[in-house]
């Protein structure tokens, strides 16, 4: 009557055999193709390194001025711009400038990568209910699977370093932009789309002239979420060798350096707030034409 009190499970021997077999297959796969895959991602690594070096080698005041300028042109808000400048100065004063630049570069590159991959997937999903039904569960898994779990196959495949770190961040951060691109396009006003059809627009004309511009606010919300998730993932990715603000945090956990952990954590929060406010203000500016002139 064992099976009443204990869940009837496979014998331990079988379980071990199962996982060993799968692991072996995967290991031989990664031995066979790991190098090719790494070579495939090589240009990405070069770009990431180039960008990181650029941010770190350029004199700090130029980088600071550039970031503040970008924030100003995106948001046109004095409050957000001054807040950004103060946050960056404090980060520098507390000795976190280099790490912050590393984190910034990986966030920028992984966000760009998420857009380049996620946008077309979102567009495809919006065009076909079948594609949507096939991709949605994958996105669910990507978003709910504990992030540490997919560190494992990626490390087995590519080892430790910047590229696997970048991949982990991208996989984790991409779902919102896919979902919201799909949603935004599906929510475009039917009558406007009908008008575009009635004037004989091609699919490409509809996409570029109507669907993408009208769903841009929703897509921007997706990009904003993607950036936030990428920032959250940078700390986890530092486990597999991604440089930046995550590493001091990791160090602080193992050595119980409370202040160091707190400061680096705050720096991540500060970057998150800057990205968030600047991208949202930009999104709102894109929306301005929707407001009525009087009222």
């Amino acid at each position, binding site marked *: 009557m064992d099976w009443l009190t204990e869940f009837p499970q496979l014998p331990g021997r079988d379980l071990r055999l199962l996982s060993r077999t799968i692991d072996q297959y995967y290991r031989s796969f990664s031995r066979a193709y790991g190098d090719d895959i790494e070579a495939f991602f090589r240009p990405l690594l070069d770009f990431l390194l180039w960008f990181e070096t650029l941010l770190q080698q350029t004199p700090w005041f130029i980088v600071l001025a550039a970031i503040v300028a970008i924030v100003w042109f995106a948001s046109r808000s004095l409050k957000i711009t001054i807040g950004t400048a103060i946050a960056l100065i404090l980060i520098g004063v507390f000795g976190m400038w280099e790490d912050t630049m590393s984190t910034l570069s990986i966030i920028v590159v992984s966000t760009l990568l998420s857009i380049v991959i996620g946008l077309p997937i979102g567009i495809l999903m919006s065009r076909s209910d079948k594609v949507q039904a096939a991709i949605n569960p994958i996105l669910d898994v990507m978003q709910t699977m504990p992030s540490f779990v997919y560190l494992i196959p990626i490390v087995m495949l590519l080892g430790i370093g910047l590229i696997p770190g970048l991949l982990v961040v991208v996989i984790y951060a991409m779902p919102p932009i896919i979902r919201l691109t799909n949603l935004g396009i599906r929510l475009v*006003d039917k*009558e406007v789309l009908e*008008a575009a059809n009635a*004037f*004989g*627009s*091609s699919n490409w*004309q509809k996409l570029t002239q109507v669907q993408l511009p009208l769903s841009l606010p929703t897509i921007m919300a997706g990009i904003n979420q993607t950036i936030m998730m990428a920032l959250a993932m940078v700390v986890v990715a530092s486990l597999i060798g991604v440089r930046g603000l995550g590493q001091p945090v990791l160090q602080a956990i193992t050595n119980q350096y409370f202040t160091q952990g707190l400061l680096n954590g705050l720096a991540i929060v500060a970057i998150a707030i800057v990205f968030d406010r600047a991208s949202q203000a930009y999104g709102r500016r894109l929306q301005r034409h929707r407001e009525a*002139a009087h009222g």
Partner: protein
Amino acid sequence: MAETAISVRNLYKIFGDDDRAMVEKVKAGMSKQELLAEHGHVLGLKDINIDMPAAGIQVVMGLSGSGKSTLIRHLNRLIEPSAGEIVVGSDNVLDMSAKQLREFRRHRISMVFQRFGLLPHKTVIDNVSYGLAVMGKTKDEQRTGALRWIERVGLSGYEENYPAQLSGGMQQRVGLARALATDADILLMDEAFSALDPLIRTDMQGILLDLQKELHKTIVFITHDLDEALRLGDRIAILRDGEIVQQGTGQEIVLKPADDYISSFVREVNRGRVIKVETVMDPVSDASPAQGIEVPEGTILEEAARQMSEADVVNAQVIRDGRPVGQITMRQVMAAIATPVLKDAMAA
């Protein structure tokens, strides 16, 4: 009447997955209710036949849900029919490939929408030039074309505004300018003025009639408002539950409503604006001496009455091609405006 620009033949539309099979059932006499209850399909249009006059305004009228939008969307194939034919000029719209259909929509048929259907992220001038941009015209051609029509609908000075900054009436002028800018011969208007305030609506009807005098387009105008139908329509088709219940000129429909449903519609109509002098006149006999003022054939009663009272006479002669063909008196005119049914006069 004039030659036919658009001919709709035996058109059926049934909403549902198995629509073609359902057409047979409807042809065999199944009702809309049975079709929905037994097969879960919605009967949208049933056996529609209309010949729409070239260079004229064909109105399709009916209550909400009667299938007007469904019908007009078949003409440029925004909706695929379940059965039937749509012939424009000498082309069957249903035989067109996707590419031919795009060309057809770009050059030969354009459309104005009830809720305007403007692109909210584009300025007035970019909205008006949308059709030209889709055709692949150069920026210069787009600009010249758009400016001309913006001026023609009275929106000069608003070129750089966004739709949300304009009133409803102005937005629909943008919609009209956008449709006219492509130089298509056929203009589809789906309740184009229904979303506007009554005064603005009357305004827009005037603009449309003015434009039509010089452009002579083939216009298909959808409305649920009989007064609008009578003011604009050279011919009117009345739709109920997806079926045509009557077709004819405004006067024919007002004077000879085909059934109680249409009678109830036309009861409230201002007859003086619909009925024409030749309908109520007595034919001239050589004996009757010429009396009063002259009014041309086709004058509406209200206008004839106004002219007679201005000239302070109670008689008028109806003139066709410079010759008198009939006589009317103020009394006849007043009686015709007041009487609800004038079947006898029509029969005469």
